[in-house]
């Protein structure tokens, strides 16, 4: 039973009025002195009491009449059960949204969710149809609209908890589209989930039209205890020509109880390397670092496992390690100045992600072989190297190499190679007289300057520029930076798979002091990373990400067919053609994926996949909040919601029209009370 306008129930306070009147009247009663109550006392007391009870009955009649009238104004209606609804209102279209995200693996959440889903199925009438949608980050129509309860229950039983993150948006959108297609007028969705807060941002643009309702069944536990390993960090160091690596695992305790002496074990290639015991306070994070070990070969599989709890999925963190590969680059300068490349060398000698392997040579000594196995070539204020002529540099760029041209006073560029330079170099602009120049515009959308986008992330205006070369770009070139007078400071041109960037001033202290400014180091690093197509090595991916095998194979020049073995052992063959969706693997399981190339020798490529760290946070949102944002009005949640509400509250109330009966009953009761009290008052005014 619910009320459409429950605030009218405040009128129930009016029940106190007849009670008060009764009490006031009783207070006013007279005391009559009588010589002796000898005879009165002899008359059975019950006769007096009976009369008083009859008066109480009258009082109750009045109170009941008021209560009925008040209830009528509050417009009550019965939240019909599914079966009752079938009897009273025809067929229904129901979409059962069953959350199968990784967090549902907590304790008995999944079993309870399945039970709730089965309860909904059992409540279906003969004409009702239901669709089973399993969802995590994505929503899947597991069982199309059917009235076959057996199939639906079988599908629910067969469903399993996945490793995906919780996202309510796609599921709600799918439910809305299924219900919108249905010709049946009574449509509702039943959302069964643990209602993780991370699954609903509030910005999902899902809106159920009027007539579609959403009810919820929450299987969330009130006090959850969950320890997770959300991330692992690696510190690399070189020792005796070998790379040594330190693994540091982060731990997060989302429970209300502190966890003491939790064993945290590092496993490398199936061998338990080390176990540490840590204590993590309630609702706190911690970390544990393991002893350094030498990383010799690629595709080393590792994992960190921490403790045990009702949700084991997030207690293990998988990763794949490989020795780092430094970015090889060569700086070509004019050779007439000993320190012309000093600033660049110093800047590139710092940093581990990536490491830069730098060679410096002069333009005259450069040979075409020097371009081999180089990721980037820097022409640092020098003439066009003769070795680059004849298409050698062009070929280097076509292969995907990167070229940085620092256009100082010595820079020259032959007309024949003009297509390798973004623009045409002009005369030197002298800004030594008067106010020096500065960088006035940066294209923050470009990967080079993207890291400087945030406020206080690099002050380029502090650098003074005294001279620069004029540059005239073509429309195909992208201007990356301009000086304060509008002259181009940097421009980029894409050539084949490679990139060519020109910097119209120097990167030392001759034409500008940018070399001594804090932004110099990140600028140089960003330029080289961009030109070298550097991607930081990923030791793991997250469930839900898509793996592009074709792109990875192209990078290695591998053209063999492949077989992907999922952590659960499923084998997915992939042809090398890479047509359509071929080569794209959605990572839906937690663990290690293996990519085996036919005919290849050695260890297969391994890809570690972990669940979204957000799944470890089991904080639940109020289901009513979610329903309210989807439907525009709140609906009750809880177990009773299994009794699906297939009509809106207004529809239910209007259909049932209980208020009319209540009002009539109240008025009839008042009329009866008036008659009775009048009759009684003739005999007895003590009412």
């Amino acid at each position, binding site marked *: 039973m619910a009320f459409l306008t429950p605030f009218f129930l405040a009128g129930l306070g009016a029940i106190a009025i007849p009670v008060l009147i009764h009490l006031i009247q009783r207070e006013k009663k*007279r005391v009559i*002195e*009588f010589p*002796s109550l*000898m*005879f009165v006392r*002899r008359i059975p007391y019950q006769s*007096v009491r009976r009369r008083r009870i009859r008066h109480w009955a009258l009082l109750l009649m009045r109170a009941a009449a008021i209560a009925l009238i008040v209830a009528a104004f509050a417009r009550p209606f019965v939240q019909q059960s599914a079966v009752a609804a079938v009897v009273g209102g025809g067929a229904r279209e129901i979409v059962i949204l069953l959350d199968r995200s990784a967090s549902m693996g907590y304790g008995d959440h999944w079993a309870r969710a399945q039970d709730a889903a089965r309860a909904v199925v059992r409540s279906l009438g003969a004409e009702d149809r239901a669709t089973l949608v399993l969802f995590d980050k994505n929503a899947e129509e597991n069982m199309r609209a059917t009235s076959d309860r057996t199939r639906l229950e079988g599908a629910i039983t067969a469903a399993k908890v996945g490793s995906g993150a919780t996202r309510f948006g796609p599921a709600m959108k799918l439910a809305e589209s299924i219900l919108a297609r249905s010709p049946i007028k009574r449509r509702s969705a039943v959302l069964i989930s643990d209602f993780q807060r991370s699954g609903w941002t509030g910005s999902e643009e899902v809106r159920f039209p009027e007539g579609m309702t959403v009810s919820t069944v929450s299987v969330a536990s009130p006090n959850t205890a969950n320890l997770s390993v959300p991330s692992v960090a690696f510190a690399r160091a070189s020792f005796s020509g070998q790379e040594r690596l330190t693994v540091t695992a982060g731990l997060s305790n989302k429970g209300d109880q502190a966890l003491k002496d939790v064993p945290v074990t590092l496993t490398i290639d199936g061998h338990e390397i080390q176990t540490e015991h840590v204590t993590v306070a309630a609702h706190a994070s911690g970390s544990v670092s393991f002893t350094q070990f030498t990383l010799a070969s690629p595709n080393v599989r590792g994992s960190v496992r921490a403790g045990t709890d009702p949700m084991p999925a997030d207690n293990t963190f998988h990763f794949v390690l490989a020795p780092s590969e430094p970015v090889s680059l060569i700086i070509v300068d004019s050779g007439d100045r000993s320190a012309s490349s000093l600033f660049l060398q110093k800047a590139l000698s710092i940093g581990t992600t990536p490491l830069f392997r730098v060679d410096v040579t002069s333009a005259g000594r450069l040979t075409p072989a020097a371009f081999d196995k180089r990721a980037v070539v820097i022409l640092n204020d020098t003439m066009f190297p003769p070795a680059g002529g004849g298409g050698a540099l062009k070929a280097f760029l076509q292969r995907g190499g990167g070229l940085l041209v620092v256009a100082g006073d010595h820079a020259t560029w032959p007309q024949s190679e003009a297509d390798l330079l973004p623009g045409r170099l002009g005369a030197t602009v002298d800004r030594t007289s008067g106010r020096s120049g500065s960088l006035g515009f940066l294209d923050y959308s470009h990967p080079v300057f993207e890291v400087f986008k945030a406020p206080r992330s690099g002050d380029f205006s502090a650098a003074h520029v005294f001279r620069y070369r004029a540059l005239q770009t073509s429309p195909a070139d992208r201007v990356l930076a301009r000086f304060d007078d509008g002259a181009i400071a940097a421009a980029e041109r894409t050539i084949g798979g490679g990139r060519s960037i020109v910097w119209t001033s120097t990167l030392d202290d001759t034409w500008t002091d940018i070399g001594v400014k804090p932004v110099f180091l990140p600028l140089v690093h960003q330029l080289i990373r961009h030109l070298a197509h550097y991607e930081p090595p990923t030791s793991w991916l997250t469930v839900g990400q898509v793996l592009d095998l074709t792109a990875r194979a192209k990078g290695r020049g591998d053209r063999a067919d492949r077989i992907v073995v999922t952590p659960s052992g499923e084998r997915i063959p992939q042809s090398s053609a890479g047509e359509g969706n071929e080569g794209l693997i959605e990572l839906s399981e937690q663990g290690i994926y293996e990519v085996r190339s036919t005919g290849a020798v050695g260890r297969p490529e391994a890809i570690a996949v972990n669940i979204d760290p957000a799944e470890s946070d089991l904080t639940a949102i109020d289901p009513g909040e979610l329903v309210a944002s989807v439907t525009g009005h709140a609906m009750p949640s809880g177990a009773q919601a299994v009794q699906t509400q297939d009509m809106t509250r207004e529809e239910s109330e209007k259909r049932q029209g209980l208020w009319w009966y209540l009002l009539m009953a109240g008025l009839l009761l008042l009329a009866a009370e008036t008659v009775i009290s009048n009759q009684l008052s003739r005999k007895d005014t003590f009412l």
Partner: protein
Amino acid sequence: MASSHATPGARFVDPNVLTRVGNLELLARHVVEGFINGLHRAPFFGASIDFAEHRGYVAGDDIRRVDWRLYARTDRFYVKQYEADTNTNLSILLDISRSMKFASRGIPKLEYGCYVGACLAYLAQRQRDRVGMITFDNDIVTHIPPSAKHFNIVLRTMENAKAERPGNLTVPLKKMAEHFKRRGLIVLISDFYEEPDAILEAIKPLKFLGNDLIVFHVLDPAEIDFGYDDASSFEDLETGEQIPVVPASLATEYREMLQAHIAALTTKFSEHRIDYTVLNTSEPLDRALFSYLSSRERLMRVR
């Protein structure tokens, strides 16, 4: 009101009542002992006009009493004997328990009882009877021995009587019985809120000496009719107990019980040759007294 009379309590001797009952006599139904000639029969033979019997002449008899006509017929001397008339003691026993102060309208029962007692005392005093009075509630409150000179004291006692304490018949009446040494006329005025058997047991000792007992049962019209409308708490004047009462539902039963009570008293008193009269305080006193005295006189003649 009392101040307008020379004698306190004289107001109880209402001229209006007396004009009606003044020519009647309050006569003892039984023989009573007196000192002087009066209206009542004495237990002894004496000088009166009522012939009693003949007896044989013995030496010493007054020869004036010899019935000569009988001597002429029988040739023997017989002396005529006459019944002696005497005066008597009138004791008014007035119940002054709290229930007697009740008055639904008009005068309280106690005042009505005083009127009755005063009128009877006046009649007695007028016919040279001795008048005394006892007021009682649950014990004897005042005791005025019968005397030809106590009429005024009786009136004053009536004036001062206050119904303040709960009543009980047994204890005071038992004590009173010890006071009555001579046969006389006893008028008991009360509302008799006790069980008929208990009342009779209490009154019996008064009859032991051969007293002529007259009982007046004084009731207020509200006690007889129970004509209340509103349900109220009724407070027992005797005990102070309060009971919520809905009169409409009780009235019939109450009236039946009261009538049964009166009927029981009537039966039991008549069995013991006690005059019993119910007085309704709403009725004029003269009518009530006239009715009683005239019927008593009529019964005396029959007897």
